[in-house]
C-alpha cells in the first residue's frame, strides 16, 4: 500500500451489497488490495465468496439490486467508483479489460470474429477498417491461433472452446490495457488447453507490463501463475501475501483448509484435511468472523470482527488466532 505511484489499481474498503427482498447480501464487504504494473494477483475463494463481484465492481458492471455502497477504486491514481457510465465505457475494453469464464457467453454468436474484434478496436481508437483488421489479425496470431486469416471470418460456434477463449483473450488484450481482470478463464477448459492459456496470460503480462487479477477457486493454478494471493471468504479478504508465503506458511485456518483440500498437496490415498460444513449464506450474515462455524480453532473472541493485522511485511490477515506455531518455523 506504500508504493502509491507504482500501483495500477488500488482498492480501499470496497463494499458491494445487494439489496434483495430476502435481505441485504454483503457480497463484497470491505476489501482492500492493490496490483502493480506487470504483477499478477490471484484472487482465490469458493463459489459465493464475492470474488467475481469484486471484478464486476471494478468495471462498474454491478446491476441492481446491487451497488457499490462505499470504498474507493483507484485506477492509476483516479477514483473510478461511481464514475458516470460514459466515462467508464471509455475505460472498459480499452484501459481495463475482462476475460470471463465462458467464452461462448462473451462472444456474440451472430457476429463473425472479425466484426467483434474490429468493433473493440474502433470503439476506442480512430483507425480505419483496414488498419483495425490488420491489428485483429496480429492479435489472433499473438495468442497462437493458426491461420488467423480464416478464423477472422469464422463465427464463434465454428470454433472449439480453447480457440474461443483465446479469441476472448485476444480481444481483452487488443487495446493493450493496463489492467486485465480474468474471471476463472480456464475452468471450463481441458488441462492441456488450460496450460496453453496460462502460458499465454503469463507472456502477455510479462511483455506488456499489464497488471492482472486472476480470479479462481483453484489454488494450484494460481500458485504457479501469480505473484501474490488474496484469499476471500464470505465477502472479505481473510489473508493476503506473496504466493510462497501463502502456500508454505498459511496463517488463516481457512487458507490452511483450502490448501489441505487440494489432493496433490496430500500423500496419495490419505484422507484429505477437509473443512467441515459449507460456505454460509451471505443473506443477513451475522457479525464476527464468518468462518467461525467451520473453524476448529474458533473461540469466544471470534464473535466480534477480527481486525486486519500485518503479521509480516507484505502480508495481511483477518484472524484472532493465526496459526503461529507453524509460522515461526
Amino acid at each position, binding site marked *: 500500500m506504500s508504493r502509491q505511484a507504482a500501483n495500477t489499481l488500488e482498492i480501499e474498503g470496497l463494499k458491494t451489497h445487494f439489496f434483495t427482498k430476502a435481505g441485504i447480501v454483503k457480497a463484497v464487504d470491505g476489501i482492500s488490495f492493490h496490483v502493480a504494473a506487470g504483477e499478477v494477483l490471484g484472487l482465490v475463494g469458493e463459489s459465493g465468496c464475492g470474488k467475481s463481484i469484486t471484478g464486476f465492481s471494478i468495471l462498474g458492471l454491478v446491476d441492481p439490486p446491487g451497488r457499490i455502497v462505499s470504498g474507493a477504486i483507484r485506477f492509476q491514481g483516479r477514483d473510478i467508483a461511481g464514475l458516470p457510465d460514459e466515462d467508464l465505457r471509455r475505460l472498459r475494453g480499452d484501459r481495463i479489460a475482462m476475460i470471463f469464464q465462458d467464452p461462448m457467453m462473451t462472444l456474440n454468436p451472430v457476429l463473425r470474429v472479425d466484426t467483434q474484434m474490429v468493433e473493440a478496436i474502433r470503439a476506442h481508437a480512430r483507425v480505419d477498417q483496414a488498419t483495425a483488421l490488420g491489428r485483429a489479425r496480429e492479435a489472433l496470431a499473438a495468442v497462437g491461433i493458426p491461420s488467423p486469416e480464416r478464423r477472422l471470418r469464422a463465427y464463434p460456434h465454428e470454433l472449439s472452446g480453447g480457440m474461443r477463449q483465446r479469441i476472448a483473450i485476444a480481444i481483452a488484450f487488443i487495446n493493450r490495457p493496463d489492467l486485465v481482470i480474468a474471471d476463472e478463464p480456464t475452468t471450463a477448459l481441458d488441462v*492441456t488447453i488450460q496450460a*496453453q492459456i496460462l502460458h499465454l496470460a503469463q507472456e502477455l503480462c510479462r511483455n506488456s507490463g499489464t497488471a492482472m487479477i486472476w480470479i479462481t477457486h483453484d489454488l494450484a493454478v494460481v500458485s504457479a501463475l501469480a505473484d501474490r494471493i488474496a484469499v476471500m471468504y464470505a465477502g472479505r479478504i481473510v489473508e493476503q501475501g506473496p504466493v510462497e508465503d501463502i502456500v508454505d506458511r498459511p496463517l488463516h485456518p481457512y487458507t490452511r483448509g483450502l490448501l489441505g483440500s*487440494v489432493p496433490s498437496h496430500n500423500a496419495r490415498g490419505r484422507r*484429505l484435511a*477437509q473443512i467441515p460444513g*459449507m460456505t454460509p449464506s451471505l443473506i443477513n450474515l451475522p457479525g464476527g468472523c464468518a468462518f467461525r462455524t467451520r473453524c476448529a480453532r474458533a473461540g469466544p473472541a471470534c464473535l466480534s470482527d477480527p481486525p486486519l493485522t500485518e503479521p509480516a511485511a507484505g502480508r495481511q490477515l483477518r484472524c484472532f488466532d493465526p496459526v503461529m506455531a507453524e509460522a515461526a518455523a
Partner: protein
Amino acid sequence: MSFEDAAAIVEAKGLSKRFVKRHDLAARIAARLVSGDGEEIVHAVDDVSLAIGRGEVVGLVGESGCGKSTLGRMISGLLEPTAGCVLFKGADRGALQGAEAKAARLAVQMIFQDPYASLNPRMRVEAIVGEAPVAHGLVSRADMGAYVRDMLRRVGLDPDFRRRYPHQFSGGQRSRIGIARALAVKPEFLVCDEAIAALDVSIQAQIINLFMDLREAFELTYLFISHDLGVVEHISDRIVIMYLGRVVEAAPTEELFAAPNHPYARALLAEVPRLGRQKRTFKPIAGEIPSPLAPPPGCHFHPRCPFASQRCRIEAPRLVAIAPGRFSACHLNDAA
C-alpha cells in the same frame, strides 16, 4: 489390456462405440451432388479392453471428447456397445438372462457429474434413494424409511432431510444424495463419471474422503472417470489414459507419475498445475485434440507428438505390455 486377471470383477473386451449421425434431407442432397458419402460416424470408443480387479480403484483420464464417459457408460450398462462385450465376474453380461442379468446390472451403479441434473426435482430424497431397493426387492416397503435413514447417515447427511426435495440442498449435499442412491441397491462396482467436478474445492475434499471411507465400508470397486489428474492421482491404484477413443497408456499410479511412457501421457502429466513455491513457465502441448469425426490416421496423437515418425502416420500402435502391469501404445517402444 490383455492381462487375464482371475479376480477381475468387471472386464471390458474389445469395446467399441460408434455414433452415427444420419444426414437430414438437405445434407443428403448435398452429399449426392458433391459425391460425399452418406453418414457421419464418430468412433467414440475404439476397441478398448480393460480389466478391473475386485477392490481396485482405476482412474480413467483424458481430455473432453476422448471417449472416457462413453466407455464408463458402456461399462455401467447405460449404453450398448457397438462391438465387444462387458464381462461381469467372468460372464458376458449381454448373454445373461433373468435374475442373473438383473443382479449383474444392480451390482454396477453409476454416479453422475451434475448433482443438479441427475436428481429428479419432483421427488423427495426418500423416494430418490428408496425407490430402487424397494422395486428390486432388496427391502420391503415397510422397512424403506429405516433403510433410507441408514443410507443417508452413511453418506453424511442428516436423516431428517429425507422428506425434502433436491432444490433444498447445496451442491455437495446433492452429490451425497446421488451417492446414497447408487449405494442403496448394494452395488459392488461404482462408475463415477466426473462425480466431483462441479463442486468447490473444500466440498471436493469432503466427497473424496467419503468415497475412500465407503470403499472400505462396502468393499467397493471404483472406475473413477475424471479430467482432474490431481484427484485421480490421489485416489486411484491404477490409471488408464485415453486419447481420441483409444487407451494410450495404463499403469499403476505411482509408476505412471514417476515415469510416464507414452508421449501424450508425458505431456498431460507435465500440464498438471501443482501447488508450487516458485512461478513456473508453462510449456503447453501444441494444438488441440482433433475432431473424432475425422481422427488422424495411424497413431491419433501423431499431429501433436514431437517424436512422430513416418510409421506413426500410417500404422496405429497396439497397446502392449512394456513392464509388468504397465501398458503403452507407442511405436517408440519397439525401437528401444
